């Protein structure tokens, strides 16, 4: 599972027929992605159509660290001939990261409109919620806002039926 993008070159070289798209992260890093992989992102698809070939597409909402992983994801999912099972296993490994990173993936997938990545990561968060008590949910997602005593009473009464 190599994670490094192919060596950078602004224009496609004759020996490599695939068209490469250049992306720039919020912190100035540049990445290259094959067109086929880039098309996984509806956002990028629109931008490519607008004929910005050559200049790196700026993505102010995504850091370099995350963009690298997103490129990796899209490239993997654009690969031909990968069977469902191994792709699923690869996906599972891909999201086997800490919660903050998963959230970053969600934001990036949302911004770049990558349905596969969005669904994958949202499922992960849903699984994280499962089996947790409200207190654990607060701790895990670092939720600081608290109910007033009356609200607290109300919300518990509203929901206690699920725990009888």
């Amino acid at each position: 599972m190599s994670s490094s993008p192919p060596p950078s070159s602004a224009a496609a070289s004759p020996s490599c027929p695939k068209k490469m798209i250049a992306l720039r992260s919020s912190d100035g890093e540049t990445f290259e992605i094959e067109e086929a992989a880039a098309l996984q992102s509806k956002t990028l698809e629109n931008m490519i159509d607008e004929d910005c070939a050559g200049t790196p597409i700026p993505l102010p909402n995504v850091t370099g660290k995350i963009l690298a992983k997103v490129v990796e994801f899209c490239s993997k999912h654009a690969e031909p001939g990968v069977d469902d099972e191994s792709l699923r296993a690869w996906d599972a490994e891909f999201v086997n990261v800490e919660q903050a990173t998963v959230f970053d993936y969600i934001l990036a997938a949302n911004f770049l409109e990558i349905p596969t990545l969005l669904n994958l990561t949202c499922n992960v968060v849903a699984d994280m919620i499962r089996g947790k008590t409200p207190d654990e949910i607060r701790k895990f997602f670092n939720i600081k806002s608290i109910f007033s005593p009356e609200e607290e009473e109300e919300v518990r009464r509203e929901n206690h039926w699920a725990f009888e």
Partner: protein
Amino acid sequence: MAAFLPDELWRHVLAIGVKSPAKSLSYKELCCVSIACRRLRRLSGEDSLWSHLLSSDFPPPTSQSSASSSSPSSSCKALYRIRFERDKEKKRLAHRRAVMRKESQIAEHLRRIRDIEASLARESDKLKASASELSNLHKVRQASVALKVWQPEVVRGKQKQMVSQCAVPVESRISAVDMEFRLCKQQIAILRKSYEEERRRLDAAKRELESIEYHPLRRCERTGSNLGGSSSRRKEIKRPIDVEGYGKLAKTS
């Protein structure tokens, strides 16, 4: 961190969880999320989520058309709660009925077992009586045979007394009583088989009751006070009287 995900994405997470084939988020999880904070309370209470749960957990019967479930005044979550509690009550009553059915089966088995025991007791008494009579008759017969040969006068006297005291014709009486004895034995054997069978059924019913009533957090105390009413029925059932000892007397030497 949750603050860093906008509403729309939290909605997406919850929707995916609720709709996923793996059913990551059920009614319970949504309620936990609701208790976590104001924002999540609002987001987790939305109709779109609960109407999905309503149709997947409490599908309307096929005769009814779908989407008739949301009433204008109550939210889908409120409706779900109503269905949920109704369903729970139904299940509780069904469980209660199952327990009662099983308990009455057990009472029936116990009643039959007692009846069989009573019959066994009667037959055993009859057997005892037959065996005893048979034993006496054999003695009389022996005596009358012995009288045909010489005996010391003392012995002869006793034998004459025995023969004269016997009011019935010995030979025919012996065969009658012998027949009675055999029939008794047969009957006892049949009763014992029924007894074993009934006991097996009782044990099976008891196991089934235990399994119906099993709950990991409750220890089932069956002290007998709720089985068929009276606690006396839970006394250890005595073994039927042993028949073998009387069988030996039937053999002539």
